[in-house]
Every structure is written in C-alpha cells, then in structure tokens.
C-alpha cells in the first residue's frame, strides 16, 4: 500500500499566508435581502487554541450550526408566511413587494443550510419538497405560449390553479381542494422531476411569475392583480391562486420546523442524537462530503456551469426572481460556516465553537491556511457576482453568449470553487478522512 495521494495534490505547494476570515455579507442595496452588517469582525479561527479540542466537540458544534441555520430558515419562513397572508388578504403592489422581500430574506439562511444536505441523507431526502428545481411551472399556473418544458411531461401544462382535476398519463387526480398533502403528493407527478408543486421555487413563481426576458434585463413581472378576488382579477382563478400560495407557504414552514427539530438538543430520537452517537470520524466525513459536493458538483456544476455553458436561463437557480447571485453567495457561505464553525444568525449574533478548521490547523497548518485562502477567494468571486447583479447585470444576463464580461464573472466563481474543492480534499486528508464518496458519507441516491 502506498501513501495516499489525491489526484490534485499539487496545489499544496502554494503555501499562502493569509489574513483570515472576516465575516462578510454581499454588499447590496436590497435591505430585505441582507441583515445588518456584522457588529464585529470575527477572528475566532485565528486563535488557534492551544487547548485541544476533540473531534466529538467539533461534530457537536457542527450540529449546533445546522440547528441555528435551520432555525433561522424556519423563523424567516414564518415571516414570509405572515407577509403572504397579508398579501393574499389585501393584494396590492405594496403587500406583494413585502412578500417578495420576505421570500428573499428567507433564502439567506436556507441557502446556508444546503451544505448539510449533502452527506446527511435525512436532509437530502427531505429537500425535494422544499427546494426542488428547475420546475415546469405550467403544472402550477398559467404560462406564456413560448414556455419550454421537459419533453414528454404531461404535467408541464396541467395548471392546477385553473383545474378541478388533472390528468397525467394514466393518473387522474382531483385537485378541487388545495391541501398541503395533495400538493406535496403532486411533486414528481408521473415520474418527472420537473413536476414541482411545492417549496421555495413554487412560492417564488407565484410571487414573481415567469421571467420572460431570457438573457435580457428583468425578472418575472406578475401583477398583484393576479390575486384580486373581484372583477379586476387577472390571470383567472385568483382566489385559488391565493389559496395555493398560502398552502405551500404553510407547508414550507412546517417542513422547516420538522428539520429544525431534527437538529435540536435533548431529543433521544432525532437525527442529532443519531449523528453524535456515531463515530466522530463518520461525522467529519459527512461534513467534508457536504462541503465538497456542494462546492463542486452542485454549486459550480449544476447551478453555474450548466447554465453558463448551455446559456440556459431554464437552469438558473432563482430564475423567477433573479435572486440567483445571492443564492450562490449564501450556498458558498454555508461551506465556509461549516469549516470555520461559525454562523452569523439573522439576529446579527454570531455562533462560534470548536471547528473543523481548528482540527486541521493542529494536524497540518498549511492545509488549513490553504483552505481558508480558497474560501476567501470564493467569497470574493461571488461578491463580484453579487455586485454585478446589484448594478444591473443579473445572473441570467451574465450567461448570455455575447456577454463575455458576464461569462467571465461566472467562470471565475466556478474556478474558485474548483480550487476550494481541492483544498477541502487536502484538509480532509490532513485529518485522515479518506474515501469521500457518497456511499461512505451516507448519501442517498
């Protein structure tokens, strides 16, 4: 048996001294999206405690961060629920805007939670109902004539809101009464993963509507009048549309409450207890697998590279609202949170504790420095993406084949994430965590 070696070991030679780790938010003009700036710059991970921390403490704190993140996702979804109820009760441009802003704010913690999805099968299996994309939105509501959907998907134009029953293949479903159970059961209708009836993106579509601008400026432009229950109703079936929006928002809140409870302390039967009862090595493997999978396969690959190379606005993550830049930023932030063992809550306080970074620093200071440098570089690249979007070039404009500057912004972020992934492999290796694959990380396929 030879010495273990990663395929891309070579980057190790770049020993870089870096100033670590100020917490940052994407600078943005939309206050609803971004909480107040951090009160203080964090220096937690630089302290390099000589006091030894154990792997068990680190995994326990990993679960704390998961709990705090899901807890914020839950509370911001509750705020969204309030805003949606107000909007549906009294539709106006103002109440619609308030609901949109609540949705954008709810995305901030949720996107940071996705790093827990990969590696923890429980989260991954739960996720479909909450954040599935891309969707054939014609399943839910009216769509434009030029709408592009999955070939062979009968559900793609079913329009639940306008129907009392829908037929997909041999399945005929009564949809006269819109309930959470019914709508959750319609996800993946007919076996097509493009049939998404619930979750953040269903809500996003109901608030913004289709983005018909392709790679040109502009997001979805649904009018609040789609929710007026008098003769001024536009788009038809306004009352059912309001019901639909309320039902899926309620379901989202319930789903997030359930996941938050899975990570809470003091419950002998929840996932946290199971995770901590297992070996710390397995816990670390899950944490590393989550960081690497989100960085490379999901964020750099599915969410950026596919959209970029195919110039496909259909493959843009938050395609109705054009919030994709923030979603990407906070996805990457989640990876950073897990490594540094810190999470800035929506109330502005910062949760810190025993971190993977500290373990790596003790085992191999170079590996730690390298990964911290790469995490910083990724955040900087994504900040450039956020800045560009805030200045009028949204993600769907960046992927226009004629927009070489925009494409470069996306390419730079992908490249940063690729390098970050290599550094994650190195950090894992420093702790003797090998075999970073889905089977060993308990990832469900």
């Amino acid at each position, binding site marked *: 048996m030879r010495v273990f070696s990663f395929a891309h070991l070579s980057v190790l030679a770049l020993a870089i001294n870096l100033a670590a780790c100020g917490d940052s938010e994407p600078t943005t003009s939309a206050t609803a999206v971004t909480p107040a700036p951090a009160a203080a710059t964090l220096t937690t991970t630089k302290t390099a405690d000589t006091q030894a921390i154990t792997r068990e403490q680190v995994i326990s704190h990993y679960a704390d961060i998961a709990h705090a993140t899901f807890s914020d996702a839950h509370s911001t979804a509750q705020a969204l629920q309030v805003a949606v109820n107000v909007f549906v009760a009294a539709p106006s441009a103002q109440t619609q805007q308030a609901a949109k802003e609540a949705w954008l704010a709810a995305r901030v913690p949720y996107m940071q939670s996705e790093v827990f999805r990969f590696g923890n099968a429980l989260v991954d299996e739960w996720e479909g109902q909450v954040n599935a994309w891309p969707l054939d939105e014609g399943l839910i509501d009216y769509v434009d004539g030029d709408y592009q959907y999955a070939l062979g998907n009968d559900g793609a134009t079913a329009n639940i809101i306008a129907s009392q029953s829908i037929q997909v293949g041999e399945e005929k479903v009564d949809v006269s009464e819109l309930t959470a159970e019914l709508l959750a059961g319609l996800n993946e209708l007919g076996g097509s993963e493009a049939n998404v009836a619930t979750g953040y993106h269903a809500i996003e579509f109901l608030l913004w509507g289709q983005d018909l601008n392709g790679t040109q400026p502009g997001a979805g432009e649904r009018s609040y009048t789609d929710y007026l229950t008098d003769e001024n109703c536009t788009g038809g079936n306004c009352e059912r549309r309001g019901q639909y929006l309320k039902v899926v928002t309620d379901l989202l809140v319930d789903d997030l409450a359930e996941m938050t409870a899975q990570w809470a302390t003091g419950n002998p039967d929840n996932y946290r207890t199971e995770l901590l009862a297992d070996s710390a090595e397995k816990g670390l493997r899950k944490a590393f697998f989550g960081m690497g*999978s989100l960085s*490379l*396969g*999901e964020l750099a690959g599915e969410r950026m590279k596919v959209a970029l*190379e195919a*110039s496909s606005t259909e493959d843009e993550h938050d395609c109705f609202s054009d919030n994709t830049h923030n979603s990407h930023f906070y996805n990457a932030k989640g990876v950073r949170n897990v490594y540094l063992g810190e999470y800035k809550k929506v109330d502005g306080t910062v949760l810190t504790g025993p971190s993977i970074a500290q373990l790596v620093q003790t085992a191999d200071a170079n590996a730690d420095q390298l990964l911290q440098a790469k995490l910083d570089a990724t955040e900087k690249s994504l900040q450039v993406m956020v800045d560009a979007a805030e200045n009028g070039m949204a993600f769907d404009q960046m992927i226009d084949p004629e927009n070489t500057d925009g494409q470069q912004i996306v390419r730079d972020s*992908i490249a940063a994430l690729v390098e970050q992934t290599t550094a994650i492999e190195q950090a894992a290796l420093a702790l003797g965590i090998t075999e*970073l694959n889905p089977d060993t990380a308990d990832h469900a396929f």
Partner: protein
Amino acid sequence: MFKKIVYAIASVSLLACSNSGDPYQQTSAALAEQVIYQAHQDWQASNQNLLSSAQAFCQGEQDLTQTREDFLQAQHSWAALQPLLIGPLNEGNRAWQVQFWPDKKNLVARQVQQFLKANPEPSLASLERASVVVQGLSAYEYVLFDPELDLADAAQKQRYCPLLENIAAHQQKLANDVLTQWQGEQGMLAQLTRFPNERYAEPLEALTAIVQAQVISLDGLKKKLGTPLGRSIKDIAQPYQAQSWRSQASLSNLSAEVESALAIWQGAEQHSIRALLATEHADLVKQIDAAYLQAQQELAAFKQPLTLLLQDEQQRQALFTLYDSFDRLHRLHEKDVARALGVQLGFNAHDGD
C-alpha cells in the same frame, strides 16, 4: 470537466520516485498509449469521417442512411472515450462542446431553432460563439433523427445542412486540437509516461487520475440508465430523458462505455489495473472479472432500443438488473480497487446529484 491548475511540487517526496521498473509507471504508460490514446485517435478519425459525410450528404452525393451511420460511429467513439476522459478533454468546456446531456428541458430543440433563426446562414465562427448545446453531436443527432424534422424534404435539408457541416467541422477541429495536446514532449501521453512532470508529480497521481476517470464513468452509467428508468423517482419510465433517445443508441453507448472501462481494468499486454492487483487481491480480481462479464452479457441480451424496452414490463425489470450490475461495478472500483491501489479519489461532478 474542470481544469486543474498544477504546479510542480518537485520538492515533495519525488526523490523516491524512480520511473523504470515501477509497476505504477509501467501501468500508467501502457494504459495511456495502448488504451487511452488509441481511443482518442479512433474518436478523431470518426470526426474526420463525420465532416466528409456531412459534406457528401449536403452536396447530394450520399444518402441519409449512410449519413446517420457515420453519425452513429462518431457518437459511439465518443461514448467509448467516457471512461478515459483525462487531460485535455476534461479541461474547459471541451466535453460539453461534444455532447450535452442530461437535456432535461429539451434545450437542444429550442436552441437549434433559435440559433438558425438568428443565423440562417451559420458560419463556423457563429457556431463557436453560440451555446455548447448547438455545437456538438446532440444537435447533430437532433437534426438527423428528430421525429418532427424530415431531411428528405429539400427545403428542410437546405435549412439544416449548413448547421450539420459546421458542427462536423467544429468537431473535427476540436478533435484535432485535443490530439495535438496528447502529442509531443510535453503532451498528455508523455505526462502519463515520464515523471515527474507539470501535471503529475509521480506515477501514483497519474494512476489516480486514470482510476478516477473510470470510476466517474461507471457512476455515470448508473445515471444514464437510471434516469430513463425513472429509478428513485416512482419508477415511471422517462424515455425522453435518455441519452441518445433520438438515434436509439442509448444502450449501444452504454456498451461502448463498459468496454472501455474494461479495457482500463484488463489493459493491454501485461500491464493493467488487474495485473497490479492479481497477486495480493485475487478475490477482488475474480469479483470484478465476473461483474464485467455479467454486465456485458446482460447488455448483449437486449435486442431492442431502450425506448421500446421501457414499455415492456419484463424488459424493464431486466434493465433494473442491469442497473444493479453497473452499481456493483461502480462500487467495486470506487471502494475496493481504490483502496487496494492506495489511491484517494477526489470529489467529482456527480457528487450531490
């Protein structure tokens, strides 16, 4: 898919590395020359032929049947390259320029139509500026095989021919460029043969890259079969989500991939992954030999295209069995072979699917 920026780390542990007589070096070199480079040459030749074929068809010197045959050959040689995707084809977006899959929302149809609307007389330059979806074999397949198009119709043939010729020209150019990067003193072939070099510090790294490409491909086989089977999503068939459903070549592509994965396993002449493990891991070798044989036999037993098989319950069950065989092969390589060789596989693009 991604370019790895590699800096020499000559100071680290390289002194111990001697090239001659090192079984890892010999294996890397032999597989590179006799399996991987060979497959790249076959692919390049099929693209050369694709260009002549497109030109002959568009000049009225060749019929549609032969034109489709030539496409199938190019597609087959591309499928055979999948377990061997290391180096230049893995960098930038080159592989994406050849094939776009999964195509969840039928982008190929939409983008070909949009492209031709914007460029009624497309040039090679305009094609190369466009989305990868219209640059490669996926778009070529759409034009030749889509049920809603008919190249027997003169007007349609006139409309689509410039696109076919430019795609073929682009593919040929791409293949020539890749092959050039395999050649020469600093070429990919040399980098898999002599160590240390700019890409690999030692033979173990090269072998790791070879095994990783093979494992990614075996993982991909599961996705390519599992998606149209509707596996893990209610088990309802999704025929239009299959790779190459238009040309009905889905299963033949999978066979080509299995054959190339096997070629890495059993190699050429005396050097192979199998040979490295033969003495100390005889049981594992037996299991893997059997797993390849089983997958081959199962594939050979299917006599119809995938889209038809999916409509038949008994055949569908047989396809699920084939999926299990791919899964076995994947696991044996990803876990056991990697462990036995002492290679550490990094993250890949399938993680998180």
